């Protein structure tokens, strides 16, 4: 595991029980700062972990630390002041306009009314909310409410932004815009972002790290890059011309090859592949190379491997 020295979240033997049901099972993990994807099947304990970090649920056993604060009732106010939370649930405050809801969120964090109003307009502009900000929240569509929840979460410039299913209910265009905003916040500001989602493509697209939560445990916290790296070194090549001779040369050099229906050649070797050799083989086969990239495993595959591994006890 390659985790920076100062973890964003540190969990030591964290256990949470609801009666006899074990929601979090003796978790010990360190989650780094950056943009983190918290993945897990339904009922894995993602929401419980988030609520526990916010002080909305109490720990049964163990210790948790977030943003240099121990998660104890004494620190709840400080923790919440420095965290922005976008809940998954369809939640809103009835009777007020969108801009008022964001202003309220800022004021509840401790900012003065006028500054809060100005800031509310700023973040609503950032979230692409137009004049509909003056409409009452209960008249909003699901997508608009998602943007509003996002705006209220970032209004106070938190150190950590926790987003629970941020792209659910959004159309493709809005989904991309939301991911772009998350990427901007994660990459160009000091803000760390934790995304709790089922949409693995989102994690693949914007996250630096992924933490996988399965059956109340966190077996993996790793960079997305490392997770997606295949166990056997592989390259994916697209050639311009007849690839038969190229494949034959690769086989002669001990590589395993496969060709996809669309013509993408995958080369694998347990001993590793030297990229310059690929260029030499192409020259020998007298074919041009359109692209050559290290092969990556999709997040779906990674996720399934981890889940199945935990559930089978490996």
């Amino acid at each position, binding site marked *: 595991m390659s985790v920076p020295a100062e973890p964003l979240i540190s969990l030591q033997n964290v256990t949470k029980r*609801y009666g006899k049901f074990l929601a979090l099972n003796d978790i010990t993990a360190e989650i780094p700062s950056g943009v983190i994807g918290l993945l897990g099947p339904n009922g894995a304990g993602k929401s419980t972990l988030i*609520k526990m970090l*916010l*002080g*909305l*649920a*109490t720990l049964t056993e163990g210790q948790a630390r977030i943003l240099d604060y121990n998660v104890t009732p004494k620190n*709840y*106010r*400080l923790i*919440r*002041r420095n*965290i922005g*939370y976008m*809940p998954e*649930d*369809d*939640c*809103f*405050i*009835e*009777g*007020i306009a969108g801009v*008022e*809801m964001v202003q*309220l*969120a800022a*004021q*509840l*964090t*401790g*900012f*003065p*009314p006028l*500054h809060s109003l*100005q*800031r509310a*307009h*700023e*973040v*609503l*502009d*950032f979230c692409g909310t*137009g004049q509909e900000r003056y409409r009452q929240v*209960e008249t909003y569509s699901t997508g608009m409410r998602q943007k509003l929840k996002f705006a*209220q979460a*970032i*209004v*106070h*410039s938190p150190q950590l932004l926790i987003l629970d299913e941020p792209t659910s209910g959004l159309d493709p265009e809005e989904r991309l815009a939301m991911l772009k*905003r998350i990427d*901007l*916040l994660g990459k*160009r*500001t*000091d*803000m760390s972002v934790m995304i709790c989602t089922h949409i693995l493509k989102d994690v693949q697209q914007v996250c630096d790290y992924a933490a996988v939560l399965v059956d109340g445990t966190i077996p993996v916290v790793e960079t997305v890059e490392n997770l997606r790296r295949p166990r056997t070194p592989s390259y994916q090549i697209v050639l311009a011309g007849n690839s038969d001779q190229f494949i034959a040369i690769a086989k002669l050099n001990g590589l395993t090859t496969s060709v996809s229906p669309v013509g993408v050649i995958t080369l694998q070797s347990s001993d590793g592949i030297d990229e310059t050799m690929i260029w030499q083989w192409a020259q020998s086969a007298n074919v041009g190379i359109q692209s050559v990239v290290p092969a990556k495993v999709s997040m779906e595959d990674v996720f399934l491997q981890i889940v199945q591994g935990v559930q089978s006890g490996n």
Partner: protein
Amino acid sequence: MGINNLGYRQWRLKPKNNSGQWRTIASFGIRVAWRSKWLQRIFIAAWIPVFVMGFILFIVEQSIQDIDSNDFPENIGRFAVSGFVYQRPEIRNLMELTQISKLANGVNDLFSNFLESDKEEVGNVPSIKGARQFMRSGIDFKIKDLQFISNMSEQQLQAALIFINNKNLNTLRQSIQLDRRGPPVPSYRLSMENMTYSQTVAKELIDYDLNDSEVIEFAELVDYLRPTLWSEVLFLFLGLPQAFSVIILIGMIAPKLISRDMKNRSFLLYYSRPISPSQYLLGKCAIVWAFLAGLTTMPALLLYIVGISLSPDISVLYVTWTLPIKIIIASMILCIPTTLFALMLSSLTRESRLASFGWFSIWILGQLGYELLTWMETEFRVNMNANDSVNTLSLSKSLFEAEARQAGNWSWLSPMKTLENLQSSVFGIDREVGNIDVSFLVVGIVCIACLAILRRRITSPIRV
């Protein structure tokens, strides 16, 4: 693109580390509630009684100024103020007790004249004036009569109590029988506490002889009773028009406050901020209190100020300075339990309509329960009495009903009566129905129970 569209910039402003978030919840809640046109109309309508009551205070003060006038129309004031003074239980008691004093003096004079026959003066046994006569001429007390009362022993007071009670009951019987018109007749049994209080008033009045005339004249009596008269007007204001406005207003505002948050899962938005459940609850209470203060405390204080301003005599300020404090306490007694109860109902359901229904039902059913049980008590007493005297059954029923109402054994069932009792106690105007301790106990228990339920309900989202 908005004029503020700056992309994203980090906010460097540091949040205040205070506990004032409840004010934010309150201010937003007030803003939302005030958008209701119906609420605005009710609120404005609720201010109308201020002007009516202000006019009454003006009339009272003008009447007090012209109390000794024999010219028309100024002397109408004496009649009006006499009505106010006459209906005070302690004054009526004093009038009865002074008659006993006069009777005792008269008997003494009679015996003295009999023994000293050379004296020309004849012993004078007084006759008791009627209520109408008092209201025409005003009421006055001789210092020696008041001294007689203040020197009465406990046994003598006890005897006087029995005498007055029997007399009042007889008068009431006659009034019911004859369908009598005129000033109110005491329709209740006096207690020993009433008598002791009357004795205290007698002692205080002895010191109130401002012109050393050995008589507490009507003007002096009115001056002594002025704070009480003001309290009565303010109690009437808070007890009748404002209590109804409060019930309607709370029924419009409070049921939505927590149930909507539960329905829309707003708790997640609130509690992910640095606020505690106590602040949340305080903020919600403050929304209701702000409206209620605008409906009860502020109009009552304004009424007081209007009364003071219209009063031709500035001395009224000296004798009524405690009233603003009493107004605030009486408003709190009206507002705190009602708000907690309404919010508790709101916290029990996600449908605010159910909470509203529950709120109005409690008031209506409470009053109906009180009326029903009082009626049953009356019937029980009548039946018990019927075994002794069949002939007086039809006559006694109204009497027993009046007694049952005054006893107020079931007044704790009616929220309105209970709150009225407490407010009456605060204003010190002796208008309680039933036991005041029971009213305090009921309100205390309701407040504690509501707080406990509220605490449990609003912390449930973070009690997992």
